[in-house]
């Protein structure tokens, strides 16, 4: 029971319960999230720090999807400018600054893949990718190696069909329909492999549900 220091009785029994707010996010003032909040207020030097913190994740994602350093660099530039331009849309309560930037990057990289590639080129990609694992094509970086191991370990925990669907969709930049076509599987099956695979990854990585 709450007591107030002026001795009044707690009136909660007679009251309509207020909608309870989640405790607001406390930001470590040195965190990338706090820096990004400052970027939203126009702070250019905070943006420099945000660039250094998130651009490897952005470039790595672009490289994994586009498989070409020049294209990946172009898209990275677009994404980092978008991070600056739309920093007011970042909500620290919804996730990390890095996750937000990587999500923007993946979307742009996928849009680029789909707009420049003809069907023939997509088919060629499918042939080229057979037997490759996504991490093999990415330049190894010491930083993030631990995180990479965690993700790799959790990907290994997926069933073969879940693994295949998730990797083709995420790193291959394909729609689920394209994945279904490539795997000659029913659409509903591919949709649930992707969803179940991601749920399993989510739980393995300990992402709050």
């Amino acid at each position, binding site marked *: 029971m*709450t*007591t107030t220091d002026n001795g009044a009785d707690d009136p909660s029994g007679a009251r309509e319960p207020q909608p309870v707010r989640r*405790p607001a996010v406390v930001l470590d*003032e040195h965190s990338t999230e706090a820096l990004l909040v400052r970027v939203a207020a126009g702070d250019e030097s905070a943006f420099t720090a945000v660039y250094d913190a998130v651009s490897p994740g952005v470039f790595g994602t672009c490289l994994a999807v586009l498989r070409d350093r020049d294209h990946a660099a172009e898209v990275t530039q677009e994404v980092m400018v978008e991070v600056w331009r739309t920093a007011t849309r970042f909500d*620290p309560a919804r996730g990390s600054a890095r996750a937000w930037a990587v999500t923007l990057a993946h*979307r742009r990289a996928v849009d680029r893949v789909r707009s420049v590639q003809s069907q023939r080129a997509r088919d060629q990609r499918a042939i080229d990718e057979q037997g490759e694992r996504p991490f093999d094509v990415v330049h190894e970086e010491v930083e993030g190696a631990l995180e990479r191991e965690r993700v790799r370990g959790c990907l290994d925990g997926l069933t073969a069909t879940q693994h295949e669907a998730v990797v083709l969709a995420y790193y291959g930049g394909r729609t689920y329909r394209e994945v279904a076509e490539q795997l000659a599987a029913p659409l509903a099956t591919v949709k649930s492999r992707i969803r179940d695979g991601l749920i399993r990854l989510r739980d393995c990585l300990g992402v709050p549900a």
Partner: protein
Amino acid sequence: MTTDDVSGSATDGPADPRDLLGAYALDAVDDVERRAVERLIAVDPQAARELAGLTATAAMLGAAASAAPPRELRSTVLDQITRTPQVGAAGPASTARAAAPPATARTRASHRRGVPRRTVWLAVAATALGAATVPSAVAWQLTRQTQQVEQQALAISDLLADPTATVVRGSVAGGGNAVGVLTNEQALFTATGLPDPGAGKAYQLWVMRDGVPVPDAVLADNDGRVRAITDGVEPGDGLAITVEPSRGSEHPTSDVLVLLTPA
């Protein structure tokens, strides 16, 4: 009359957007499907929550592919942003640097109003601004500080420049003194001399609305000093703190240690 089960149809009939949440999180949908999912999460909080978890998971797949971008990209981007306006910004993109006289403080206030209100706010330990107590006079001296401290100071000076600002003081049960600055839209809570809350515990701020505590942030404790600004207040609200598990609580699990209410 029984309805046919269409889920096993050979062609994919009207899709339940719920089935697309995973694909959406991987950007593996087309624009029509994308909009269907976005309509779903706008009305279904459970689906929205599931999507948030899946999106965060997908982001880890990307982050794991981390690679250093070409060095020359950095200066290209840093240069480009100086010429790029931001969405939601009311004023010029560059920030004021020097100590701000009241007129500039008002300009800063209108610049900040252009930034969309958030439920998130910065809880900061008392910094080089150093004052152990907040003076009751409205005048606030900004001295030249690091940019970070300036940002906090500007937020506080905005608050103090607000004509609806009320300053309230109180003693904290168990030790310490608290001061609140309450306006119609924001409130500053600051306290000093607080005892250690104990292992695994922290001070939590509550907004008191008609006697009901609304949970607000857990406060970072810097040697017995805490400070926070919240915009989750309405006219007439008060501020209170309790000691809670450091994770924070939805309802107070211990006694209110100080209650600051506008007169």
